[in-house]
């Protein structure tokens, strides 16, 4: 019996040894293959991650043209919903073998990604690309976000700066001009409000949305979120005024029970004629005016203007190269191509959100564009726009401030308390490292 058992144990041990050595061999083999492919300059597959949005579809549709010029580089795009992207990208940064060679970066992530060394600095590559690439042509506020501690870590992909979208026909009917101050905006909205139509569709949803919308009111009142050195300056009379006015307008003129509304709900209200105005992304205008789009018969009646006061909240997506990928050159080749003035014009004419000043000028006079007025307005918006947060832990700071603002709109906190708490939390979160 004992012999039999010894035999069994030895067999089990042997099986383990065989399995373990088998695994070892596979790893070694794959390692060899990888290094061989790099040495012999074989076709490269760039594994990219992008958000499931129309702007990514436009890039996808341009890949055929890219491959005509660069047949050796295949761009394999994985499209994911926003909620899953940061996790996936971070896991790839931390993995011994990266999952992605090319990523898109949302502006609140920029500082954290760059300062931790996850992103490859691009200054050398930008310089090599030379005058034809014309890096300075990207709108200045967009370039500024990609600069962390004096180095450039990403190239703009598309902007999502805010503007005021309004019903031109209703403005004409009421003899109103685009508002130039928050007080004027409030008056306009009040005048446009009737039993049938709300003067404005607001987005007081807790977190990013309410902060993104309210910050425009803050800028218009002359306030700021951070000063030039990055210190939080939210605790100001301007911020209190802006929030008081924001709540007044929500209570008086926004659709009933819209306290949880975000982008989708507000967009639906405007496109279906239930609301006359909304603060939204500048590139929503072509979508709303598209006769085959959601607005149906109302298409063509919408117009875009700068946020009252002229300074708007800036959001933007960027192209970045993970520091841990082996395919940096191929990734840059693609980024340089897709963001070059020629291809960027193509992208913008296909409906992509603009980033280059020269492209906006050209697109304005192009027959496939959305008209000169539109591009001129977007140009002015991009000339004076600022992100919600620039610095460490931006994402958390945005959520914290957004929660406080939402508390005030819901009537759970006074304006004064909400602003004080928002400012203290923002300071605590962003200065953690300093």
């Amino acid at each position, binding site marked *: 019996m004992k012999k039999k058992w010894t035999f069994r144990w030895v067999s089990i041990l042997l099986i383990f040894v065989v399995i373990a050595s088998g695994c070892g061999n596979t790893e070694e083999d794959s390692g060899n293959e990888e290094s061989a492919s790099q040495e012999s300059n074989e076709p490269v597959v760039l594994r990219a991650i992008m958000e499931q949005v129309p702007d990514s579809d436009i890039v996808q549709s341009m890949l055929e043209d890219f491959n005509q010029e660069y047949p050796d580089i295949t761009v394999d795009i994985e499209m994911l919903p926003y909620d899953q992207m940061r996790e996936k990208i971070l896991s790839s940064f931390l993995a011994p073998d990266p999952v992605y060679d090319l990523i898109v970066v949302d502006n609140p992530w920029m500082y954290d990604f760059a300062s931790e060394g996850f992103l490859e600095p691009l200054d050398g590559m930008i310089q090599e690309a030379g005058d034809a690439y014309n890096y300075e042509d990207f709108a200045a506020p967009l370039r500024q976000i990609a600069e962390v501690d004096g180095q450039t870590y990403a190239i703009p992909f598309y902007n999502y700066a805010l503007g005021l979208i309004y019903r031109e026909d209703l403005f004409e009917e009421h003899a109103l001009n685009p508002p130039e101050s928050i007080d004027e905006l409030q008056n306009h909205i009040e005048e446009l409000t009737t039993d049938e139509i709300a003067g404005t569709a607001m987005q007081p949803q807790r*977190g990013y949305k309410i902060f993104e919308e309210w910050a425009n009111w803050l800028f218009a009142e002359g306030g700021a979120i951070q000063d030039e050195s990055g210190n939080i300056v939210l605790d100001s009379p301007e911020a209190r005024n802006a929030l008081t006015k924001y709540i007044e307008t929500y209570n008086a003129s926004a659709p009933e*029970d819209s306290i949880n509304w975000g982008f989708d709900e507000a967009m639906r209200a405007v496109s279906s004629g239930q609301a006359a105005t909304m603060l939204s992304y500048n590139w929503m205008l072509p979508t709303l005016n598209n006769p085959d789009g959601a607005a149906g018969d109302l298409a063509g009646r919408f117009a875009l203007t700068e946020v009252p006061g002229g300074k708007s909240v800036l959001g933007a997506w960027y192209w970045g190269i993970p520091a841990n990928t082996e395919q940096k050159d191929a990734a840059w080749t693609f980024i340089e191509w897709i963001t070059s003035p020629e291809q960027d014009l193509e992208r913008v004419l296909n409906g992509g959100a603009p980033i280059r000043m020269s492209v906006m000028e050209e697109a304005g006079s192009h027959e496939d564009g959305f008209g000169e007025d539109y591009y001129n307005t977007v140009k002015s918006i991009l000339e004076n726009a600022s992100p919600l947060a620039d610095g460490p832990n931006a994402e958390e700071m945005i959520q914290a401030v957004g929660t406080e603002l939402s508390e005030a709109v819901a009537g759970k906190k006074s304006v004064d308390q909400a602003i004080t708490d928002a400012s203290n939390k923002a300071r605590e979160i962003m200065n953690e490292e300093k």
Partner: protein
Amino acid sequence: MRKNEVMSGVGKRIVSPFISFEWRMMIPLLLLMAVIVAYPLLYSIWISFRNIEIIKPSQNDFVGFGQFATALSEPLFWIAVKNTFTFLVIAVSLELILGLVLALALIKQKRFSNVIRAILLTPIFVTPVAVGLMFRFLLSTQFGLITDILSRLGIHIDFFNSNTALLSIAMIDVWQWTPFMMLMLLAGLESLPKEPFEAAYVEGASSWQVLTRITIPLLKPVIIVAVLIRSLDALKVFEYVYAITRGGPGTATETLQYYIYKVGFGFYRLSEAAASAWIVVLMVMLLVVVFLWRTARGESR
């Protein structure tokens, strides 16, 4: 012949060169438990004493009880505790009452009882996140079927404003989990002895007396288990919050699981999230022990 071999094998099974037969049979399960339960639990304790943040891979120092202190001093954590327990009390007590009513009705049903039971059980089979999304649309103020029907009847309710959101989420939980409570209580009712009921009938007790003096006291052990299971489950409420309100408006629906998720996977402060989670585990363990101890003491009296 074969049978004899098997029999002889059974007779000898205690004799083993290294470990007893029983332990050898247990080893695969124990290894599996160690890998999938013990390791993550111990690992989460370990990281709760450090300052690990996914976004800062270079940072990994021992900070003692620092993360626990941070978690306990965070006002939002206590708001989440309050919201979660409010949710638990509303949801579980309603589920118990409705579940008991349904179980009492179903036990008397003679025809089609299986079909009716199967239909009533369907909400349990739907993934909670799908239930959340379903109600998000049904209760939407913009195009929700339920809000539309109510407004046609002249009733105007915003299900997700700062006063109603937590209650609405509790109601969604009631919709999904009352059938579970009903199932547990039904099984309990079916196993009750007949004699006390016959005696009550002979003595001329009213239905109310039968329910309060016989049925509920006899059903108490089942009720305790059902309430305990549902309460532990309700403490984990996450999907409805994630799918519908994301903790808002303000902090109205910030629940513990959502809060911990946000700290750990939204802001990547893994250590603080682990510390918060362990505080919750300790709180729950304490409550369960007190609850079971009190019921055991009540029973012994």
